[in-house]
Each structure stands twice: as structure tokens, then as C-alpha cells.
């Protein structure tokens, strides 16, 4: 059972198209696995669409009246001519199974939302392997993180936010067990220490290096930027 979902506010921003690609893709992947959120998203989209195209929305902005309307008409006519001059229709894309990625001998099909995003080389430290998604979003880093059976991420906090979306397998932290589809958004108030008994694959987005808090791990802080 998926227990962790994106907050309503995040879904709203998603529907509006106001989130960066990394988080938008995370929500899309979650929604593909979670009919409940899928349904919320459809409803929200319908409402936002309706509101956007209501007449009064337009009228609020129209300062001047007929002169402007006429200019607009003229301009529109030429665009209409241009568009309708083309006979092309969009062919239906039937997507085959997307590309896949291999970590330590296991192959994973990439979720639809990220199948066209370029992946960097896989880097490894111990039981952790990470491949970066080349989204070029500045301080926001997006990765696929694979934890081998028995592996864990050292206890850490975050300076910014960290999204962990479990794609396959499971892991446990102080809050309990997580299963595929769980959407776990943490911010700097949280500390956690995920351990994966049987191994797992996560989609992670973080906007700053994480900060290790525990004993010897403090010395490991530089690898924070490796993991997320």
C-alpha cells in the first residue's frame, strides 16, 4: 500500500505547470502508480481549466474595448490562416517499453515521465549507486539512487528539501517502512537514516547537499553531494 503522497499544494502547482521538471516528473511517476492521486490531479486539472477559460477571467483584463478587439481580430486571422494551411495531423505515438537502466545486474525500465531525460554515468560508493538526470536545474539535483540489499544512507538532515520516490523495492527509516510508489518529501526539519534490507531503487530530487549528523558520518559530509 502506498502511504505517502504529495501534498495538495504540490499537486496544485503541478497541475498549473509551475514546478521544475524534476518535481513535476516525480509527481507524474507517483500518480502513475497511485490511482488516488491520479484522480485528484484529473479533477484539479478540470477545475483549473474551467476557471482559466471562463469569460470573466478575460473581461477583468480587457481595459480598452473595440479598437483593441479589432486589432486582435486582424492579427488572429493571419495566425488562423497559417495554422490551417497545414494538413499535418499528429500521429498517435505508441510507446514501446521505455529505455531501461541496470544497477548491479538488475534491470529497471525507466518510468515514462523520465524516459527521454539524459542520464549521466553511474557512480558508486559501497552499496550505493547513483546516476544523475541531466536536467540542468541549477542547485536542484535529480538522480536515480540504487541501494543494494543491506545498504543504507548515513543519517542526515537537509539544508533544503529532499524528495525520495521509491520506484522499486523497499526501505525503512525511523518513520517505518516504505514501498514502491511512496512519495517522501522531507525538509530541513527532518533527520533520517534509510536502510534497505532487500535493496531498492529511488528517484531523488534535492536542492542542496544533505548534512550528516551522526558521529563518524560527520567526516563523510562531502559524500552528501554524491548521494543526492
Amino acid at each position, binding site marked *: 500500500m502506498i502511504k505517502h503522497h504529495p501534498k495538495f499544494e504540490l499537486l496544485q502547482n503541478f497541475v498549473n505547470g509551475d514546478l521544475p521538471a524534476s518535481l513535476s516528473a516525480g509527481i507524474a511517476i507517483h500518480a502513475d502508480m497511485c490511482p488516488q492521486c491520479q484522480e485528484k490531479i484529473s479533477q484539479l486539472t478540470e477545475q483549473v481549466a474551467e476557471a482559466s477559460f471562463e469569460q470573466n477571467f478575460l473581461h477583468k483584463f480587457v481595459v480598452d474595448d473595440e479598437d483593441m478587439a479589432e486589432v486582435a481580430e486582424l492579427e488572429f486571422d493571419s495566425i488562423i490562416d497559417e495554422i490551417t494551411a497545414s494538413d499535418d495531423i499528429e500521429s498517435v505515438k505508441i510507446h*514501446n517499453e521505455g529505455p531501461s537502466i541496470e544497477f548491479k545486474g538488475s534491470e529497471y525500465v525507466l518510468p515514462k515521465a523520465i524516459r527521454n531525460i539524459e542520464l549521466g554515468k553511474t557512480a558508486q560508493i559501497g552499496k550505493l549507486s547513483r546516476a544523475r538526470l541531466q536536467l540542468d536545474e541549477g542547485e536542484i539535483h535529480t538522480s536515480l539512487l540504487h541501494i543494494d540489499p543491506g545498504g543504507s544512507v548515513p543519517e542526515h538532515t537537509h539544508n533544503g528539501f529532499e524528495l525520495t520516490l521509491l520506484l522499486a*523495492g523497499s526501505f525503512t527509516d525511523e518513520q517505518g517502512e516504505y514501498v514502491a510508489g511512496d512519495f517522501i518529501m522531507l525538509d530541513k526539519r527532518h533527520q533520517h537514516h534509510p536502510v534497505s534490507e532487500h535493496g531498492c531503487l529511488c528517484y531523488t530530487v534535492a536542492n542542496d547537499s544533505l548534512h550528516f549528523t551522526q558521529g563518524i558520518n560527520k567526516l563523510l559530509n562531502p559524500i552528501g553531494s554524491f548521494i543526492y
Partner: protein
Amino acid sequence: MTTFNLPIFPLPIFLLPQGITRLRIFEARYLKMVSLAMKNNGFVILPNASASASELKAIGSWVEIIDFDQSENGLLLIDVRCKCLVDVSALQQDEKQLHHAQVNRRAHWSETRVNETNDKIASSLKQVFSHNSELDNLYVDKNFQLANWVVARWLELLPVKLDEKNAFIEQDSFHHAMQFVEAIILAEESNN
């Protein structure tokens, strides 16, 4: 070997011998096809018509119309049953854009009785039928005691890409098909 010339209905579905499906027909050229098919020998459903125009080897399902009706909004509904699989060649289009082709009968494992059947697979199929009255009504005869029939019906129903299903068109693929259905319905081996 006898060759027949039959109308072709391009539609991406997987239909094995004795399989039945309902089609809704509303394009003029296919209405014509249906009237031809009623008078003569049925027609052939060809799943990958666009690809087969260029390729030599194409396989379709030769179907006969067993019932027809009109839907609430005036569409023609036909129920068709697959007689056998056929090799399709010499695809041509007539002036009404309707395709015709030469077809030859092709043997398939589902036509061979296999009595020993896996009870669980048969009973889960029974359940599917009992929950879908539309599907249930299509079949007058249901052969839940025959493994070949049960496996063939499951293959048609499973949500798997056509490309993948095509592996089971081969005459000798019955055991693969059986194992495949078992893996999905029973998941014998534990998986995560």
C-alpha cells in the same frame, strides 16, 4: 493447398481460433466489407496491416460473423468468431479503399484438444466470464475443461502488447503459452 480471396479488416487485436469478439463498424468501406462477408466467407482481421503491405509474411485471423445488432446510437455491431489463422499475401486495395488478400489456412495449437487443464487457470477464467456479462453472452459454448481453449482465451484477454502475444501464433508454442498464463495468473515463483 486452397487459397481464398477475402476482404481484410485492419485492427490491432489478437484473436485465436474459436475466439469471439464484438466489433463496432461505422466506416462506409467496412460496412461494405460486412455485407460482402455475410454473403460469402467472412473476412480476415489483420493486426498489423500497415507493416504487412511491405512484408511477405503476415498472419491474420479469419473470422465469420455469428451475430449482428444495432447499438443504441445506431452503430452496426457484429460478433465474429475466428475460424482459423491464415497466412496473408498479395494485399490489394480496391476503389473503395477496402483491402483484399490471398489467404491460406494455417494450423494452430488451439485447434488441438488438450484435456488436462489447470483448474486454477480455468476457474479464474470462469470468474472473468461471470463478471463480464457482455463477454459471457458472446460464448454459447464455453470449454473450460479444455486447456487449449482456456489458454487461448486468457491470451486474448490479457493486457499484453500485441507484439508480445504474437509469439503464441507459432504452432508449437502451446507450452510457452501455458507457462506464460500460469506465471501471470498463479505467479508460482514468488516475486517481489
